[in-house]
């Protein structure tokens, strides 16, 4: 858990990586942009006073202003500081991507092959590729988890999950 990365001031970088300050400036620009989008959306539906009281954009308009305002404060605070620290090492980011990329593929694959097959594959990929486990243990855990999920959700708690061609083949 990254509890407080503001305390380590000038930590010696191991193999470089994006700068914390640059990241924070980027984040405050993105939040300001988000605020601007909210402003535009509010103006589209009207921010004034209508027949039935405040129009729908009335409240979000001020929310948008506050987002832009607080983002500006964050931006200025970051611009003034000369504290330098790394956002994350490249090796750390590589690890994050190692988890993120399979997860992203997994999420998209749910749309096409359903929850069960894609979940089985996700667990198997992690165990074989990153964990370097034997395929037999991998098969037991990945298929076993899907069966447990099936019994728990579909049978016990009656929550249907998305299914794909494989489940149709098995008449589930």
């Amino acid at each position, binding site marked *: *858990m*990254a*509890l*407080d990365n503001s305390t380590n001031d000038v930590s010696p970088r191991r193999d470089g990586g994006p700068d*914390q300050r640059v*990241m*924070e400036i980027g*984040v*405050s620009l993105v*939040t300001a942009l*988000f*605020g601007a989008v*909210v402003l535009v*959306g*509010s103006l*589209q*539906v009207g921010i004034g006073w209508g027949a*039935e*009281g*405040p129009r*729908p*954009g009335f*409240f*979000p308009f001020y*929310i*948008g202003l*506050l*987002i832009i305002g*607080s983002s500006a404060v964050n931006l200025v605070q970051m611009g003034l500081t000369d504290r330098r620290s790394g*956002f*994350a090492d490249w090796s*750390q*980011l590589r*690890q*994050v991507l190692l*988890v*993120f990329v399979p*997860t*992203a593929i*997994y*999420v*998209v694959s*749910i*749309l096409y092959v359903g*929850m069960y097959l894609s*979940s089985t594959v*996700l*667990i198997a990929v*992690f*165990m074989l590729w990153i964990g370097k*486990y034997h395929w037999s243990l991998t098969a037991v855990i990945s298929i076993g988890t899907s069966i447990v*999920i099936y019994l*728990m*959700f579909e049978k016990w*708690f*009656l*929550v*249907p*999950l*998305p299914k794909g061609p494989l489940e149709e083949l098995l008449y589930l």
Partner: protein
Amino acid sequence: MEEVFNLFHGFAVVLQPYNLLVMLLGIVLGVMIGVLPGLGGANGVAILLPLTFSMSPTSAIIMLSCIYWGSLFGGAITSVLFNIPGEPWSVATTFDGHPMAQNGRAGEALTAAFTSSFVGALFAVVVITFVAPLVALFALQFGPAEKFAIFFLAFCSFIGMGKEPPAKTITSMMIGFALAAVGLDSVTGQLRLTFGFTELLNGFDFLIAVIGLFGIGEILLTVEEGLSLRGRAAGINLKVVLQTWAELPRYWITSLRSCLIGCWMGISPAGATPASFMSYGIAKRASRRGDNFGKGEIEGVIAPETAAHAAGTSALLPMLSLGVPGSPTAAVLLGGLLIWGLQPGPLLFVEQKEFVWGLIASMYLGNLVGLAVVLTCVPLFAAILRIPFTIIAPIILVFCAIGAYSVHNSTFDVILMLVFGVVGYVLKKCNYPLAPLVLAIVLGDRAEEAFRQSLLGSQGSIAVFWSNGLVGGIMALGLIALFWPLIHQGSARLRAQRASPTP
């Protein structure tokens, strides 16, 4: 004494075999959630919320609140044995808990942690039993202006009491409000901020946000840290438990103080994490053995654990009586109420007696069952943490995806969850607090409704927010909370002038 009568009625509800089963299941799942990295109380409850769709609201809330108690207990196990706080509020427990385990006193530390958790929770439940109905009764007279003032107070406390920079808290919170505003406007029924995307018609569901921000985001953070788990053996047996229990009454002042700190911080939505740190800090200053803190002092385990549990439990008081949750997990529970078709707020105590008192009774019983479960099953739960991360991480990811999907049976939500996960990772790395964002998504529509209704009543004059003593008083409290850091700094400077410069 009507409360006692109602409470007994609640016990009758809870003691039905099905509800007891659900309670036990909730506790066990909760401890597992608390132990596993990347799963916390809020997103654990969010993921399991869809499981309760087919239950009665009372059984559902019993299960979910027991998951919450279980996760509060579970955090202590990893802190003591592995020096990894399973939950943010157990960070302070690692300071003395882990050194105790290193000195071979793991059993003692765990017993002290669990027992203090129980004491803290019990204290908070007693407070809820007797105070919540009064608050609810009082709040029944609230008009829209008072309601908005309560929301204002809750959000100001976040800004003023949080340890993150105030501007970042505001950014995070306002993003939450903006996300809540997307979709159908609840007052006029008009669409807004959807920019033509039909997926956004119903707005952003906070459950998806919780699972993404806390679940996926937390896993990405955990991966980056790289997990090396070298835990201490969990030697806990009846003898150690009894010995520790014999020792604990000596620290009753610490316990009582921590209970009070916890309840205060829990009701004002500062939350369990600051409560545990504050309680630890004060215990360290007040204790005669304060210098030994950090080296394995049992008082250093009692103080944060008691406060964290008291805070975590009392966070349900404003949720039940005012409809304003005191913590992200309480917010998820409140979202559950809406899904089950109950209207959170003071009327619950009038219209849903069985539900409210069943829940309160389940807090008593659930914490007792929880204490028994964790004391007897520590080695089992510690074993979960020894499962390699390459197995547990994809399983957690799968459960997050299932949880996100089953909220609305929508695969779009799963993609949204992933987006929230990345946002959560980046925001957390940049020191933005995530709890206010989630709370704002949950409360956004209701806060806005109260705000607009008040303005309607006053023909657009914002003077309505200080038009009478009550609403003015609550708003003033909110402003005090908002500027608390400045007030605190000022008083600290005064004290520093009087006393020696070093604390």
